[in-house]
C-alpha cells in the first residue's frame, strides 16, 4: 500500500521536503506505526516525530495514534498551529 506523507512549517524544513510517498507492507498500519517508522529512519528528528506536540491529519481530519491507515491515504504531520 502507498501512503502520501506531507510535512508543514518547521517539520517541512527539518525533513527537507514537502511530501513523499511511502510504500508499506504492513497489513493494518496505524498513524503511530508510521510515526515510529519515520523516526527510526531519521534519528536526528526522532524526538520531534515521536513527541506529543506533533499533530497528525489523515485525509485532512485530525487523527490519533491508533487511526488505521489505508492504501492511498494522505497523512499530514505538523507542529502545533500558530495562526491568528
Amino acid at each position, binding site marked *: 500500500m502507498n501512503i502520501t506523507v506531507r510535512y*508543514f512549517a518547521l517539520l517541512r524544513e527539518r525533513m527537507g521536503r514537502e511530501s513523499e510517498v511511502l510504500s508499506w507492507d504492513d497489513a493494518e498500519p496505524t498513524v503511530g506505526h508510521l510515526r515510529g517508522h519515520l523516526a527510526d529512519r531519521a534519528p536526528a528528528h526522532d524526538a520531534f516525530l515521536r513527541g506529543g506536540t506533533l*499533530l497528525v491529519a489523515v485525509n485532512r481530519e485530525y487523527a490519533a495514534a491508533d487511526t488505521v491507515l489505508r492504501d492511498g491515504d494522505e497523512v*499530514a504531520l*505538523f507542529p*502545533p*498551529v*500558530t*495562526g491568528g
Partner: protein
Amino acid sequence: MEPLGDKARIQQGPFDAAAELERIKAASTRIGGVVLFVGVVRDFSQGHGVTKILFEHFPGMAEAKLSELREAAIGRFDLIDLVIVHRVGELAPGDDIVLIAAAAEHRAAAFDGCSWCIDELKKAVPIWKKEHAPDGAVWLEAHP
C-alpha cells in the same frame, strides 16, 4: 483589496473590514450588534523586533476547518451571521492578519461568539507563522 468571497476563507491579499461589516449587516434586519475583531502584525514579539511574518497554511484543510469553525460558532452562540478571513503569505508590521465579524441579535452573543472563534482558530486551524527578526527567523512554537 480582493473581492468579498466565502464567509470563511483564506486569502493572500488584504481584506476590506468596512465592506465586510456592511455585508454582514445586510444579512438580516434582526441583527442588533456586530463585533469585529482584526488581528494585526506587531513589530515586537517575545523580546525582539519583528520585520515580517510568513504565514503558511495547509491548503484545503485550513479552509475546511475555518468553515467548520464558522458553523460551530453560529450554532453555539446563536449568531445570525459570521465572517472569518485569514491571510497567508508574507505580512509586514501593521498589516491585517485575520478578521472575525460576529453578528447577533444582542451584544453578549456577538462578543462571546467572536472571542470563542479567535481562540478556537488559534487551536485548530492549520496555519503557522514564522517570525522574521533582524537576527534571524523562527517558527513560533506556541500561540500567545
